[in-house]
């Protein structure tokens, strides 16, 4: 055992979480010994998120029955909240894959206690993101035309369209993430199967564990497949948000047609995703009493990553301004002036404040190690990132080449209900998941603490 490994274990766990059995108990208690918990906060959360989910369901029903005209679109601003929400949710989804694959490949052992619920966040965020483009289509019943299938119309999809790229990127990413998440959980499902006392729980976890018995050969194959999946996940996740960036960059609009968009979107995605992970980490740590496995050091490193991302975001915004100036095109320059001083300026300045200025507080170790401060700044980052996306969508469309077509975008009630309804739906899915599946990867934590457990 090297000194570095010991330091790692001591840093990422508390003594109460440095026994195999202690880890098993900590993680499985909310699932198997649920009667010992009060669950009051959980029920309140479920009721609130259920209410918002109902709002979302009503909105979707209304969109399907009345069309996209119920949203604040006009003849000029034909993309509104749904597109901004879509980019925002996809971005949140990215961080789960970042934590589970990129940090795995870089041997960052601290990821072990947060990767599972970050992956779950990815699944739900990507699923919700996938709803928006379909609802926004206007003819959602024809979304399957994006699939190349033999049809009586003798039509093929238009492969040069960004819509097709989007569809396949999201679909592949979503299914890939489901496989990755479930596969990584199989050994933990076996643990739950073996710990469960009730017949129903034994059958449920037993069936899902697929007969996993911890054989050394199986572990060997498991590691080969899991690591290879991680290697594939990194290019997939980078390509996914690059495609989202290309939705804009492949157009001819001022403020969109920028080569910086794909990398800038990828970093922004990981930024907002990390902010969401930090938020969920704080909630789960408190709700499931995981203080022994999720320490202040976790918040410290996550804050550092957000700090680095905030600097890159600041640089990206500055690059946009510089590019507009250097480009020399009047419309490009006018758009930057419009963003900084026009009617949407408050949104733009708030974005700069939340995404670039506020996170500079993370330079202070005291702020990084304060859960409350990290949570508060994470919320601001998420709001700021949403402002960024709505600014990109509506800013450009409101102010393109032809002044006669300039219109402002005003959201309607249904715009807001779809935004907050989806947040409630995310909460609902997450709360249900937390009652059914282990939120921390037990076998990876056991491996992390193995050196400390040894007599």
């Amino acid at each position, binding site marked *: 055992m090297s000194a570095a490994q010991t330091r790692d274990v001591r840093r990422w766990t508390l003594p109460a979480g440095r026994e195999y059995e202690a880890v098993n108990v900590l993680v499985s208690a909310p699932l198997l010994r649920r009667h010992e918990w009060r669950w009051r906060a959980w029920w309140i959360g479920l009721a609130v998120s259920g209410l918002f989910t109902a709002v979302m369901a009503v909105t979707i029903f209304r969109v399907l029955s009345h069309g996209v005209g119920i949203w604040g679109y006009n003849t000029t601003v034909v993309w509104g909240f749904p597109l901004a929400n879509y980019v925002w949710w996809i971005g949140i989804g990215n961080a789960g894959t970042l934590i589970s694959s990129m940090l795995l490949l870089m041997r960052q052992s601290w990821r072990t206690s947060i990767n599972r619920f970050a992956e779950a966040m990815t699944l739900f965020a990507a699923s919700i993101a996938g709803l928006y483009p379909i609802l926004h289509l206007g003819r959602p019943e024809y979304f399957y035309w994006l699939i190349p299938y033999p049809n009586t119309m003798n039509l093929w999809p238009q492969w040069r369209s960004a819509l097709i790229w989007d569809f*396949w*990127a999201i679909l*592949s990413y979503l299914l890939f993430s489901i496989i*990755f998440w479930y*596969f990584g959980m199989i050994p933990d499902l076996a643990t739950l199967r073996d710990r469960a006392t009730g017949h129903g729980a034994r059958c449920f976890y037993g069936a899902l564990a697929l007969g*996993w018995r*911890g*054989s*050394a050969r199986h572990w060997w194959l498991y590691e080969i497949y899991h690591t290879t999946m991680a290697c594939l996940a990194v290019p997939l996740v980078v390509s996914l948000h690059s495609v989202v960036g290309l939705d804009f960059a492949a157009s001819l609009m001022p403020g969109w047609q920028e080569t910086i968009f794909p990398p800038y979107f990828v970093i922004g995605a990981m930024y907002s995703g990390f902010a969401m992970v930090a938020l969920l980490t704080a909630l789960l740590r408190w709700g499931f009493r995981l203080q022994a496995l999720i320490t202040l050091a976790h918040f410290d490193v996550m804050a550092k990553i957000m700090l680095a991302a905030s600097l890159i975001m600041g640089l990206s915004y500055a690059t946009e301004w510089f590019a507009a100036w250097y480009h020399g095109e009047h419309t490009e320059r006018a758009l930057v002036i419009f963003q900084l001083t026009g009617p949407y300026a408050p949104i733009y300045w708030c974005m700069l404040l939340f995404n670039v200025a506020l996170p500079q507080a993370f330079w202070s170790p005291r702020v990084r190690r304060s859960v409350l401060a990290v949570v508060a700044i994470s919320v601001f980052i998420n709001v700021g990132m949403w402002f960024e996306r709505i600014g990109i969508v509506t800013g450009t469309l409101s102010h393109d080449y032809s002044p006669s077509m300039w219109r402002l975008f005003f959201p309607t009630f249904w715009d807001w209900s779809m935004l907050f309804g989806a947040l409630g739906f995310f909460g609902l899915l997450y709360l249900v998941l937390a009652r059914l599946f282990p939120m921390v990867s037990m*076998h990876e934590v056991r491996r992390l603490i193995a050196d400390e457990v040894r007599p």
Partner: protein
Amino acid sequence: MILLARFAHGDALAGAAHKARASGYRPADAFTPFPIDGLAETLETQPPYIRVAMFIGGAGVAALAYAVEWYSAVLDYPIDSGGRPLHSWPTFVLFPFAIGILAAAISGLIAFFWQSGLPRLHHPLFDADGFERVSQDAFLLAFTAPDKSDPRKLRTLLRDAGALAVWEMTP
């Protein structure tokens, strides 16, 4: 008959497996709550073909996807838009890439199940005493039918190698 030996931690188990092999016993398998580095090599496993399957599946589906794009855009449904090339490969790359990675993931999953023999909801070993601890905190080394010599010798060897308990089970 299966002989099972329990160890306190993974390194002790790996050491015992090594010693047993050196003395001419071949451990049938080991059961651990998390992967132990180098253990599979000691146990003589067949080479894995998961990555090969992933490459073939991924590259094959990606090639197929590209072929569909090329056939539909160049041969079956050509759209001449200002004389631009029908075979516009830069925009054709993304669909094969995304679906190729998905196909690689699915191929690898199938290969994993194929080679590991899972899903197999029941296995005789699940009846062994204390086997339910394997998924939690137990490290077991298993030997099948130690016919070559006295099983007592193997027991002594395992105890000397640090086994906490050695017991037999008949599946």
